[in-house]
């Protein structure tokens, strides 16, 4: 059993390294644009976790059992190591001296390895657990309006890693209750605590719902809400030995989401195909979700997330349509995937079932 705490799986070498290798290459293969969390930062964190295991600085990797991604403890581990790296390296002294004494005692070999780990880490920019940013897009003193862009990168409570971007315009006459404070220099801005908290709490809502929610805030005109979500990642990693059905024993995502993709993956992972494979397999989803006034056609090309209107019953649907008439915007949802050969058919099956046409990038096992 690889669940070690609530929604937490522990992976150890060698499967942990195989998992991180696949995940790192999946991030590269996904061709992520600015709608998603910064790919390089996330890649740095994944590479650092892998390096930490390889060098023996850490003995295990904690993964969220639902999202299949490194969890809060793993993200925080990299962040705190990064914060303490400079001071730790200063205390350790030169790596050459530690390496020269490797045979003297175990501690010197361990410190030399940690030195290598921290030295590489300190020059990297790692993925934050949470990161808020407010950017001023336009400021027109004559009309008293200012346009802002609010960005939130968050390791969500559901275990996925997401980026939320909100573009809005605020009218100065209503700045008594302003959601964004424009600094005296007219160039920098910060969201008020209340608004910031609301955005943070609502980050797991889809763009459509969030758009409607924010439009209700006085003095604010929302122009665009966009989300880019990395995850879930569904994996199956051979660990050696034999499984119950005579196949290869594997570590797999233990608590995959209960949606079409999760169910299809679950069926595959318990089926003959998965049991017999000796290769590590990984499937990662990358979803985008945008609600804005300038979208031409409203559509969901996401096989696991239809439009809100399609999910509502007749009565709620009527009320929702009335609400939408007040806020003219359209929604576009999409999802692309990166999959190893064994899981490509699973994704294609889910997409075909939902009637969507999605990009599936190939991920070759290393």
């Amino acid at each position: 059993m690889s669940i070690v705490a609530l929604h937490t799986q522990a992976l150890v070498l060698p499967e942990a390294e195989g998992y991180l290798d696949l995940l790192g290459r999946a991030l590269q293969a996904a061709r992520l644009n600015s709608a998603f969390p910064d790919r390089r930062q996330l890649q740095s964190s994944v590479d650092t976790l892998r390096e930490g295991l390889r060098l023996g600085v850490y003995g295990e990797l904690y993964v969220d059992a639902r999202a299949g991604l490194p969890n809060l403890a793993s993200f925080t581990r990299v962040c705190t190591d990064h914060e303490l790296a400079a001071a730790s390296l200063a205390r350790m002294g030169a790596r050459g001296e530690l390496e020269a004494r490797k045979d003297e005692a175990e501690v010197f070999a361990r410190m030399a390895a940690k030195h290598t780990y921290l030295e590489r880490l300190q020059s990297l920019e790692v993925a934050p657990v949470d990161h808020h940013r407010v950017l001023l897009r336009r400021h027109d003193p004559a009309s008293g309006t200012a346009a802002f862009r609010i960005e939130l990168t968050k390791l969500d409570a559901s275990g996925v890693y997401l980026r939320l971007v909100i573009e809005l315009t605020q009218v100065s006459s209503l700045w008594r209750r302003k959601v964004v404070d424009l600094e005296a220099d007219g160039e920098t801005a910060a969201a008020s605590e209340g608004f910031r908290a609301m955005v943070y709490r609502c980050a797991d809502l889809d763009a459509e719902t969030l758009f409607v929610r924010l439009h209700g805030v006085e003095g604010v005109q929302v122009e665009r809400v966009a989300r880019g979500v990395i995850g879930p990642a569904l994996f199956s990693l051979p660990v050696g030995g034999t499984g119950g059905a005579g196949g290869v024993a594997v570590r797999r995502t233990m608590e995959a989401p209960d949606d079409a993709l999760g169910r299809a993956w679950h069926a595959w992972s318990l089926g003959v195909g998965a049991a017999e494979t000796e290769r590590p397999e990984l499937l990662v989803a990358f979803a985008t979700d945008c609600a804005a006034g300038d979208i031409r056609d409203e559509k969901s090309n996401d096989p696991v997330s239809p439009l809100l209107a399609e999910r509502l019953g007749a009565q709620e649907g009527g009320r929702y349509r009335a609400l939408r008439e007040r806020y003219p915007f359209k929604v576009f949802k999409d999802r692309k995937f990166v999959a190893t050969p064994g899981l490509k058919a699973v994704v294609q099956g889910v997409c075909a079932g939902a009637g969507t046409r999605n990009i599936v990038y190939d991920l070759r096992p290393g």
Partner: protein
Amino acid sequence: MSAKANLDVLNRQVAYSGEGISVKSLETEIHQERTVQDGKVDELKGLRARNVEIQGAMADELKKLRRFSDYLNGAATKGGFLAGLKEVLSYIPGLKGLALSQRSIEELLKAQYHLSARRVKEAAEYVDTLKQSEQDLYKEIDRINVKIVEMAKNERAALGYVLELKAVQEQLKADEQAAEAGSVEQRDIQANADKVYAKLAEHSTNVLLYGSAEERYARLKDNTRKLAETIRNLANDIQQYTTASSIKLDMASAQIQAIGRAADAAEVMLEMKRSLDVMTESMNVTTQFVSDTQMFFRSNLDTFIKDLETFDETTTGLLEENLKKSRDIEEARIKAAIDKAMARQASAPASV
């Protein structure tokens, strides 16, 4: 020249290993060895200062967690719900004075978790530093052991030579008595007796210096070993505690993530309290430990330093005393050396 006494012994060079010894050189060498120990003691003092600093920071974190926990438990809301939570929020950096609804509790918990994880990591950094110091000290013990063996061999060589000189001295005395008073032969014997006496004085001093050095290096080794063992025990304790704390924090992180989505709802307050309790327990364990180690440092390190200082005064006093000894006392020393050499010869006739 005497016909009976073998004066070749006067021209023979005694093979002492090392660079020769004098009161000054011995003092210099011991001082060098002591410098290593002093360096390690200074490192421990530095660690003690940092220990106190971390203890203060951890106590602050613990206080916040306790207040959070008390608040969720309903024990800290004397001034009402809002006052209680405002007070709790005021412990979080940057949140003093903010209204109740203005921050996500999920975000606060994650920030607090980050701080706690960082504190535990800072405490764990001690382990490698201490283990490195321990190894340095064991390396020093090896070097001191070489010195001890060298001093013991040199003392043995000095003792052997003193015995030979004593035999020649006695022979010269006999020769002098047999010679005609005031004759050239007697003057020659007396001149050689003076040379023998001078050699005896020189090598009797060596007997004492090498003997003293051996003893002092042995005591230095004991102190170094004591210091190394102190450091090893401390490192093992810290490793045990921080590993346990780190594991508990990792488990707490899972709970925070799991309840995060609903953390601002009243129904999950109990879940949150459990999560906080795990964090509090983790911080408790580490804080108690840091407190314990602080007491350990206070009670043991000071005593240890004091011991070292006493040792210093004693040895320095001994050397100063040696320097002041007069010719009369030197006589007694020669006699003591000869007695010792003879006693050694009697107990181990095969050795020289």
